[in-house]
């Protein structure tokens, strides 16, 4: 075991998978010689060469589209989009082809590809560099949408995503890349896609979060515990397919829930979580479900970033409302 940042944990996952399976390759802007602008792919080109680690021209649709061709031919491309805010240039290739190739060819061809990108705010970045549009991908059948929250689960989920036979969009919370270290086993570890995890047990209220929002949610849980409230905290890990059974079981027990995401409120992932809870836990709701989210504005330039992003205070206040 070693204590690794998320950045190092992701790098470990990539290196071990590339070692284990020579069809795995990495492609994107500045991923080779530069090791990626966040250094997630550091060292890979020296180890595996420039055929398996491709510094591509500046062209997101082609990064995904060429990756699709590579995947159909039997490679396992891991496409890096430099920031999730630039992924929209590739969304047509994802929706029109990556998501459909298996279905369109009746199972003859498939696209075991990962498209990974840093997402979310909190690092005082430029415009477009703090985006959180996971719903675009979650609403697209044929894709999976995964968002880790810490070093260990990021490593395990990325390995699972790489091994998954279908296209996975993997958003990495950049605010967590180097925020803290965590024990990460040297030996390989996976986590199943589509399964959430209970991070903290409690019988009074359920708090659901993912990505960089897990930390303020755990902070809020601490504050609530100090007030004598016992919150149950669920870390989604996968947005689609959603582990609605775990969330519903918790809400059936607790009756009150707060969902936290930095993405804009309207039509965000929180809405679907609410919908699943209506479908699976309706009769156990004691109070209106709460969602603490980004406002329905464009993510502000970084001087106002903190005001935009959910924090522990907002989550606690929402919990109070849900506990009325």
């Amino acid at each position, binding site marked *: 075991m070693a204590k690794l940042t998320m950045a190092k944990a992701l790098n470990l996952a990539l290196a071990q998978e590339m070692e284990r399976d020579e069809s795995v390759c990495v492609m994107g802007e500045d991923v080779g010689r530069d090791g990626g602008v966040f250094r997630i792919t550091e060292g890979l080109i020296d180890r595996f060469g420039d055929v398996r680690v491709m510094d591509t021209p500046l062209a997101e649709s*082609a990064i995904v589209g060429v990756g699709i061709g590579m995947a159909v031919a039997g490679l396992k491309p891991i496409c890096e989009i430099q920031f999730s805010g630039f992924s929209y240039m590739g969304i047509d290739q994802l929706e029109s082809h990556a998501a459909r190739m*298996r279905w369109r060819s009746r199972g003859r061809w498939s696209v075991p590809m990962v498209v990974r990108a840093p997402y979310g705010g909190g690092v005082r970045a430029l415009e477009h560099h703090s985006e959180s549009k996971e719903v675009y991908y979650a609403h697209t059948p044929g894709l999976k949408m995964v968002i880790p929250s810490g070093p260990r689960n990021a490593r395990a989920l990325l390995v699972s995503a790489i091994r998954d036979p279908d296209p996975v969009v993997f958003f990495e919370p950049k605010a967590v890349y180097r925020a803290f270290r965590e024990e990460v086993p040297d030996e390989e570890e996976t986590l199943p896609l589509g399964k959430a995890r209970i991070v903290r047990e409690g019988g009074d209220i359920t708090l659901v979060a993912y990505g960089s929002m897990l930390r303020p949610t755990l902070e809020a849980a601490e504050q609530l515990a100090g007030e004598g409230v016992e919150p149950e905290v669920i870390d989604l890990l996968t947005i689609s397919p959603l582990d609605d059974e775990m969330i519903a079981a918790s809400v059936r027990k607790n009756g009150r829930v707060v969902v936290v995401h930095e993405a804009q409120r309207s039509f965000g992932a929180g809405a679907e979580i609410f919908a699943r809870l209506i479908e699976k836990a309706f009769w156990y709701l004691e109070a209106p479900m709460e969602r603490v989210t980004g406002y329905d504005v464009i993510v502000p330039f970084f001087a106002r970033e903190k005001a935009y992003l959910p924090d522990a205070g907002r989550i606690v206040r929402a919990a109070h409302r849900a506990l009325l």
Partner: protein
Amino acid sequence: MPRTEIDLQQTISYLSILDEEGNADEELVPDLDDDTLHRLFRVMLLSRRFDERLLQLQRQGRLGTFAPVKGQEAAQIGAMAPLRRTDWFVPSFRETAAALWRDTPLSGLLLYNAGFNEGGLPPEGNNDLPIAIPVATQVPHAVGLGYAARAQGKDDVAIVFFGDGATSEGDFHEAINFSGVFSTPTIFLCQNNQWAISVPREKQTHSRTLAQKAIAYGIPGIQVDGNDVLAVYAATVEAVERARAGEGPTFIECITYRLSLHTTADDPSRYRSEEEVQTWERKEPLIRFRRYLESRGLLSDQEVERLEQEIKEEIEQAWQEAQVQMENPDPSVMFEHIYADPPDYLQAQRAAFQKEIGGG
């Protein structure tokens, strides 16, 4: 210093071998045995007749919207013929003729046109991708397929077909640029049929030729008479050899013409003249190739009559097979192949769906 002209170190050429009358420039005729020459004609004729039958069936409401390939038989079959089965075939939505060269079952194409997902299954043993409808989006796939082949130590190549309209799309540009940088064994086969629905070639782009767009990527480009199956074949053979030898991609612009409508939902009388169509009818690919083969003693009127009959029966047989498969379409087929392993929520939806259609 005064302006100096930059040497681009490449030129764009035009290649034509078989003229409209069926006379061939013997020095340029590619090396093709009699069987292959015969097969080239047979498949062109099969494509033509199949196209006609599809149109008929669509007008009768038995099939849905489709894109006729009439006029582009040489451009597609000439380009497909030099490739091996393991070479990748990446079509757009109009490559029926090329698909027929690849022995794609007619019944499958009929099923596809009748709106059945089952019709999308590529023929066994072929490295064929399914029909791709969003214009130009298939072009990067052929770059990746080619890249993978080389990474896997194979000498397979990938050919991708697209139209004149497709050259305006960003994916066309990004893909060919990638191919030039990584020197992928990809053949970019542009079917310049002069139209993109109602937009004529001159309004699609201001460059005089489409082939010259290759200069933007530093890759070889050539323009050929797309109605001349021998020229298309010769140019493609060259491109295939270069690609297999590790020398990278080639862009081939086939000058041809969309003799029929864009799709069966189109009305060309709104935007082009009958005279223009007639002009191009005279240049169409089957007539000249038939004359050439006749001049070579490889085809006779009786042989053509025999072929016509054979083809007619083949098409009818396929249509009968397709209709059998079209009875009782199990609608839960729509839940298949979304993922390798259907997730729980999808299985639940399928079960609920099955219950609903069961009766409630």
